[in-house]
């Protein structure tokens, strides 16, 4: 038996998957010197800005208050994983929260340094481009870890988390 809980509103879901498509496109597909790269970079900046606003005024599980950055809670979750305890988090888990703040910040800084490279002051300035590229590498590593963690956590607690980010609903397994 499963109980369905509505967790992710349409804007959170649209934000998430738009960012996935844009990140892959910008990091792996487009020529970094192309005009389209710059334009889509601005779209990403807009998405991040939207998510921050939505994190302040949005639906319950979209709000930052629903998943505050908490090293203590993250440690507790690691303890749960180690001892086999399945504690239910309807929204983002503590570890998930840390990853999200990491990604929002990293991608925000990628957009910022990208913008800087188009300004008179920082055009052709080496360190800005190097930081931009280093952050993209870090984001790539984070994305791989994020995917691995979501798959792992889905199996551990018996909830299809990727599907929930598509449909908005988490199917919570009930004890027999």
């Amino acid at each position, binding site marked *: 038996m499963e109980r369905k809980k509505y967790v992710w509103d349409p804007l959170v879901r649209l934000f998430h998957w738009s960012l996935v498509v844009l990140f892959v496109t910008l990091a*792996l597909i487009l*020529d*970094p*010197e192309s005009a389209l790269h710059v334009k889509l970079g601005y779209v990403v900046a807009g998405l991040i800005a939207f998510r921050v606003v939505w994190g302040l005024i949005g639906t319950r599980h979209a709000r930052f208050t629903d998943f505050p950055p908490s090293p203590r809670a993250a440690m507790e979750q690691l303890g749960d994983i180690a001892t086999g305890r399945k504690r239910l988090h309807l929204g983002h888990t503590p570890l998930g929260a840390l990853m999200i703040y990491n990604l929002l910040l990293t991608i925000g800084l990628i957009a910022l340094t990208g913008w800087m490279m*188009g300004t*008179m002051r920082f*055009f*052709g*300035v*080496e360190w800005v481009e190097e930081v931009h*590229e280093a952050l*993209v*590498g870090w984001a*790539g*590593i984070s994305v*791989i*870890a994020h995917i*691995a963690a979501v*798959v*792992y956590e889905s*199996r551990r607690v018996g909830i299809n988390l990727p599907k929930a980010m598509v449909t908005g609903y988490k199917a919570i397994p009930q004890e027999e």
Partner: protein
Amino acid sequence: MSIKTHMKASLVALALVAATPLPGMASSAISQDVQAQITEMLTADGYEVRKIVPEDGMIEVYAIKDGQMLELYLDADLNILRIKQK
């Protein structure tokens, strides 16, 4: 899959991402002598030279002139083949 297999798979994937060179990365730099030549030549022509890198078998120069951000593409003999306005 067990936790261990997941972790191993993730680490392999991470290593691949970390090892993959990003598109547009320079394979080898332009020598200091050539950079100095280019800088002298372009500065005399009113450019403020910001960066010189190899690109697609040419020499790419990021420079500013008359308040415009430009990318100049030079051949090995330092002839300007193309100027792209950013």
